[in-house]
């Protein structure tokens, strides 16, 4: 039963990583940049939702929607102001700028909301935890909803990218920026849309994460951000199903190594697994093999 409990916690944590990793992987796919500020957008989403529910008295679900809108806007603004001027200058320059944006968001949050941590009220407050198998097996509403949300988002995104015009345009841009432009696709718009979707999802991830692990601080997004980045690479960066598989696996490995090996070394074990996977599959589990031309 302990095994099953750990599996559920792992899936739930992994789902959070997966949703965050989606933002990384989509942005990477389309603009080949590592957006290290993504983790901090999660934090902003958490704070916006917290402020709305605590001070404005808004319903949690409505607050989630507003937070999504806010983060979407934030994502678009960040892309427009900080990343677009550097498009085409190589991924390293944008990487450093992204880190600058990450510092900026963290320190803005510190100034706006102060250093004192907040405890997030769960979106599913009031719902009962399911106890099965004579109280041995516990499923919290948070983990259930997080896992479901992850699956829904994944299906929706796959459909969006595969079937809609905007989604096809996004794929075209990520395949070949220049050719897409020649085909009459508005590259700027496609990239903005990607950032918008990624950041909106970050708000969802922020609210789900803070519902399960309720501490909200200006640095809350940093560690999940790095883990989700790892997850994205694990699954093959640029691949949407890869992000999901990577996220889930990472969550499960993390929880299992904590439960059965060592809580002190769990992060080391997670990262060691990543290295091993990459040694066997150098572009991640579902990553595309890059053929190099002379």
């Amino acid at each position, binding site marked *: 039963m302990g095994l099953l409990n750990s599996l559920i916690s792992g899936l739930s944590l992994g789902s959070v990583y997966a949703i965050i990793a989606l933002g990384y992987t989509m942005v990477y796919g389309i603009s080949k940049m590592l957006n290290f500020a993504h983790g901090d957008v999660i934090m902003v989403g958490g704070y916006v939702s917290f402020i709305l529910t605590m001070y404005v008295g808004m319903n949690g679900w409505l607050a989630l929607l507003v937070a999504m809108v806010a983060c979407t806007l934030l994502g678009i603004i960040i892309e427009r102001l900080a990343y677009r001027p550097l498009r085409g200058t190589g991924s390293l320059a944008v990487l450093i700028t992204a880190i600058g944006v990450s510092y900026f968001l963290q320190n803005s949050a*510190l100034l706006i909301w102060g250093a004192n*941590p*907040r*405890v997030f009220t769960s979106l599913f407050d009031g719902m009962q935890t399911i106890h099965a198998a004579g109280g041995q097996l516990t499923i919290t509403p948070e983990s259930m909803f997080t896992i479901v949300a992850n699956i829904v988002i994944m299906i929706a995104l796959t459909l969006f990218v595969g079937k809609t015009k905007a989604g096809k345009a996004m794929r075209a841009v990520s395949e070949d920026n220049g050719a897409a432009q020649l085909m009459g696709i508005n590259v700027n718009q496609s990239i903005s849309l990607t950032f918008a979707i990624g950041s909106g999802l970050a708000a969802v991830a922020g609210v789900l994460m*803070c519902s399960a692990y*309720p501490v909200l*601080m200006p640095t809350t997004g940093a*560690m999940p951000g790095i883990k989700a980045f790892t997850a994205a690479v694990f699954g093959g960066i640029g691949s949407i199903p890869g992000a999901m598989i990577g996220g889930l696996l990472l969550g499960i490995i993390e929880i299992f190594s*904590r439960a059965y090996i060592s*809580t002190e070394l769990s992060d080391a074990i997670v990262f060691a697994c990543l290295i091993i996977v990459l040694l066997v599959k150098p572009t991640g589990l579902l990553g595309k093999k890059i053929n190099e031309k002379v």
Partner: protein
Amino acid sequence: MKKNWTRFLVVALSVMMVFAMTACGGGSGDSGSSEGGDNVLHLGGTGPLTGPAALYGTAVKNGAQLAVDEINAANPDGVQLVWDMQDDEHDAEKAVNAYNKLVDDGMQIMIGSVTTAPCTAVAAEANANRTFALTPSASGPAVTEGNDNVFQLCFSDPNQGIASAEYIKQNYADKTVGVIYNNADNYSSGIFDKFKSEYEAGGKQLAAVEAFADDANADFTAQLNSMKNAGVDLIFLPIYYTPASNIMTQANKMGYNPTYFGVDGMDGILDLEGFDTSLAEGVLLLTPFTPYSDDENVQKFVKAYEDAFGETPIQFAADAYDCVYAVYDAFAKTGLGTDAGMDEICEAMIGVFTSADFSASGLTAEKMQWNAEGEVDKTPKVCMIQDGKYVEQ
């Protein structure tokens, strides 16, 4: 080659601009207050004002500011205090930089640093430079080791570990005890080490020991399951209240409700915005300070703090408040004028602090005295949270 020149021009220009701006800002902003009167004593401190530990630094900054304002207002013709707190980001390197900056700015007595690792680094520098330092909250033993000029106002980590172990062995002998601690944190590991050796000294065993690495917002279900499976019904939490609140919330969701025993870092949990304080009912903690005390001075302090900063003060703020008064009283005893140098003050202050007839009273304790090692003589109080208040046990 040319590309590089351009780059450097831009970098150099922007950096120069910032320097120029800082020079201007400094000139117009601070100089008035810090160099105003003749009878001014400069107090300096370093602590985390940004980053994940910012709440502790901010509390110290505010707590000390209250005391400074009170002292200055109470006796406008006497020694006026100036309090300058610099950010150290909870990092030893930055703390040494901040300390050096304070020395440049004419600091005479230091109140800090706030956290242990930065304070250890600063203490060595302060010892070499002869700066007197009284730290409100850096409780690790390395802070005072070999530094005759550094004193602690809080009780040290090992003492907390020992006191907790003894209390649990005496009063909860029949409980199965487990520990969750932060193995990436100096404070937490320091308390845990001593707790473990003290608790297991009498032949008892800890049923489960689990750790986490600094991430306050982690998933604790693995650790909690391990506690639950080992039959633990009392969890010792030598950690700060932020991760503790997370642990309690998650345990509650799992339907697992053991007794929690915290140390002084647990103080603050009741004022955590958004936290369901009913989860903290029955929590035991060691604390030198409680904002719910009936003590008149404490009430006055809590009210002033809430008015000024809009928050209920945590123990760090009270410690800092006491530090300022202790330093102020001790300085008066040295008989030195405010024109005395840092090193002169240091030797005199060491003399006063270690003398048998000096004691300081404040919010966190009455009649605190210090030994030559710099440790304060203070007994930890065990409180239990009942009806959202601390009740002394």
